[in-house]
């Protein structure tokens, strides 16, 4: 008998099968992931979790008898009062005895299983992209990397190119006609044989001389020589990296209700997850404003309360300042997303419009404006007559041909679709634009 401890064997044997399964049901899982995402809290989003997909897509059909129609019979244990010939009313639901279909329980139910956090987010963010990244500006910042570049005669032992070194040694040995071990062996045997026979000593001497010579030669030309050694060479190269910065502008003024702030925060949270997961080199700048704007860190941006009046241009000015200071448009792809309830102080409208048109939009690759409304506004979304002052301002800009995306959100569940719309991959468009 053998006992084998398999517990330490590498786990995850079924990983390849799981990937095949996810690929197979990708469309359905993706749909399920988006539905689930709508129902959950944004912090939950990072956690992965259970999704349910219709069983139909991953069904494994086989030829089997249907449960309906035809004569079915059952042998059942536990008879209490029946005798032969008794009849029982058919149980409601049409099935036969209580066990009908119990054994081929090929469920038609939905299929429920757990996704890991990475799988979940990958599927969730699968077709999102920052528009026009590195298209308008050739990326300038470079990272250093190493690249294989042939062989060198010096180097550290870890980089020893064994195959190449041995090949060199072999060709040198051949060129120098280094005697082969078999040759030496053959001669030695021959000499030994002759010595035993005590035959012609002349021949023996000649052989001994030859052996001596060969031995000398072997010593002179070693099997492997420092000359043969080759090392893998690496040379540093610089890789261009598309650098991008995302400005998140959020209105936190008193007119924003808790509900609106919640919506805006959800939106930015989503944006934040998206950017940090998909782009290594995207910097994020958080700016929040009331009647004055301030650059803040992530923690403050999402969590700290503040109230005040509303002057949108203050945020734009702050952004302008930061761009001038740190993110030269020549070197950076600049994106901005703004969330607001649409209120603005009456005399600020034209200032904001001018700032946006003349300063901000020209340096931006993409500018998204998200207007958050209260839950009750939803009734009016169908009608266009209810427009906030900021919306009107931006709409005018858009009509003048400014590159500006605008969406309105009233309810939590609209965040995801709108977010997807704003950042969906524009393959088709891009393809059409490239000549």
């Amino acid at each position, binding site marked *: *008998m053998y*006992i084998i401890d398999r517990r330490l064997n590498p786990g995850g044997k079924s990983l390849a*099968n799981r990937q*095949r399964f996810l690929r197979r049901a990708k469309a359905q899982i993706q749909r399920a992931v988006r539905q689930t995402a709508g129902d959950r809290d944004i912090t939950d989003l990072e956690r992965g979790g259970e999704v349910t997909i219709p069983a139909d897509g991953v069904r494994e059909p086989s*030829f089997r008898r249907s449960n309906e129609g035809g004569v079915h019979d059952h042998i059942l244990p536990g008879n209490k009062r029946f005798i032969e010939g008794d009849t029982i009313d058919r149980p409601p639901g049409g099935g036969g005895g209580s066990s009908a279909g119990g054994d081929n329980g090929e469920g038609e139910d939905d299929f429920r299983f757990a996704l890991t956090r990475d799988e979940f987010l990958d599927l969730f963010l699968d077709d999102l992209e920052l528009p026009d990244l590195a298209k308008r500006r050739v990326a300038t910042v470079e990272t250093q990397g190493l690249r294989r570049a042939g062989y060198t005669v010096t180097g550290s032992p870890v980089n020893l190119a064994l195959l190449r070194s041995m090949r060199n040694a072999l060709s040198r040995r051949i060129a120098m006609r280094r005697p082969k071990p078999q040759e030496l062996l053959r001669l030695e045997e021959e000499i030994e044989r002759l010595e035993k026979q005590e035959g012609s000593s002349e021949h023996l001497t000649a052989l001994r001389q030859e052996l001596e010579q060969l031995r000398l030669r072997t010593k002179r030309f070693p099997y492997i020589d420092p000359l043969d050694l080759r090392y893998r060479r690496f040379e540093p190269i610089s890789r261009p990296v598309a650098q991008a910065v995302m400005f998140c502008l959020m209105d936190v003024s008193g007119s924003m209700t808790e509900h609106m702030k919640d919506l805006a925060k959800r939106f930015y949270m989503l944006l934040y997850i998206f950017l940090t997961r998909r782009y290594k080199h995207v910097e994020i700048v958080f700016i929040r404003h009331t009647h004055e704007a301030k650059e803040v860190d992530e923690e403050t941006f999402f969590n700290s309360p503040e109230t005040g009046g509303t002057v949108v241009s203050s945020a734009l000015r702050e952004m302008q300042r930061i761009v001038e200071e740190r993110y030269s448009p020549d070197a950076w792809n600049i994106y901005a997303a703004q969330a607001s309830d649409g209120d603005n102080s009456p005399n600020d409208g034209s200032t904001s419009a001018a700032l946006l048109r003349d300063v901000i939009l020209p340096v931006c690759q993409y500018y998204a404006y998200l207007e958050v409304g209260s839950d009750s506004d939803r009734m009016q979304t169908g009608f266009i007559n209810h427009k906030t002052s900021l919306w009107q301002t931006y709409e005018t800009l858009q009509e003048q041909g400014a590159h500006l995306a605008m969406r309105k959100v009233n309810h939590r569940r609209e965040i995801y679709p709108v977010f997807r719309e704003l950042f969906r991959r524009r393959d088709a468009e891009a393809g059409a634009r490239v000549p």
Partner: protein
Amino acid sequence: MSVMEHEKLLFQGADWDFGLIQRIHDAIEKIGVGEMGLDVYPNQIEVITAEQMLDAYASIGMPLFYKHWSFGKRFALHEASYRQGFMGLAYEIVINSNPCISYIMEENTATMQTLVIAHAAFGHNHFFKNNYLFQEWTDADGILDYLEFAKGYITRCEERYGHAAVERVLDAAHALMSHGVHRYPRKKRPDLRSEERREKERHLHQEQTFNDLWRTVPTKGAAAKPQLSDERRRALLELPQENLLYFLEKSAPRLQPWQREILRIVRQIAQYFYPQRQTKVMNEGCATYCHYHIMTRLHETGQISDGSFLEFLQSHTNVTRQPEFDDPHYGGINPYALGFDMMQDIERICTKPTAEDREWFPEIAGTGDAMAVLRDVWANYRDESFISQYLSPHLMRQWRMFHLVDDPDRPDLRIEAIHDERGYRRLRRSLSRHYDVGWSDPDIQVIDVDLAGDRRLILHHHVLNRTLLHKDDAQRVLQMVANLWGYAVVLKEVEPATGAIFQEHVAHPHETLF
């Protein structure tokens, strides 16, 4: 005295280590082989974790298997229900191979490990080695090597032809798996070891005999071939044929060699599992009877403590519980319970027969040597024949069995037979028929091919009890058959007695598939 007893005990408490497993195995071997006369393959016991158990579940219990999405699906399903606590894991999995591999879980207590070793490494093992179906249909020596070959082969196909193409063939083959077995023995014994060599040889032969010149030889106009008679054509194609996978592998005109090989792999594996489907009651009954006997003997000889024995009895009664038909937990007849009770019953008939037993089982009643009878039963029967031979009136009364018939033409359900003098034989016959795989799987056969015309393949489903095929599924599977066959396929659902056709399904191949 008490010191003596303590020395005899194999273990105390729940902890175990590898030395203990070895001692348990040896103690069990003494009883199983020495007293019960079991004949087993050498054992290989592997300790695994819960995750590895889930892995094994996903690939039908085999230690290595090719890759397919359906295994990933199964794993996800099991994992979800396991994590939520809906499902406990089996204590063990045992593989019909030589040496016989049993997996045991690391979290089992020492008592459970004893139970598991008695159950799997001796009960199942003996059954695998001695039952005629396993001897005839499976090749325990070759199975692991064959699976290794299958896994490698399918991986290479995926690399060469792409995941999607291989997946389509595997999907289709899996759908036909239940109709990919030979039900009657053929001339050649299965020999899985030669399978890999055979595939290589065929490949080599193709390469050696390949000559590109043949492609350039002008063909004469289609020579008027002598028309084969219908009989002759069917004989050449081995029709009618109920092994659909075999037929497609050998005769489908448009398959590539690698596609045929994949069909063959799935077919071989289906064939390997075919005996297990036919011996569920006997296999589990045998293992349960053995573990019960062995554990009882271990307790009698003082090798396990009273506490362990009680722990064992609790799991044992859980496993052999049979809820009655009106119990909300009822989910069909429990094969462990039926098998165990029947084998206990045989022991009773051998040792303490009643007048009734002497009348029903004259050849075994009162012989006294229950183990000899049981060994003979384990070797020479399958579920269907076992039940129709050995289900005793005593047991039918004990289980209070009755036969219920659901005929859609009648307004109500009818009790056809109960556990009384008039009903015994009918009850037994109907129950045994439920365990006849040939009867419970729909009978589908390839009847003919229209070779001269549009190469349409004609399948018949011989309808039993007016129960038709599940319509959606049948259409899906038929579509896969059509894709493999390369031309249209018709499936007719036929009443065998009258030849009346209930329903016809047609599928045309997707041109793009292969």
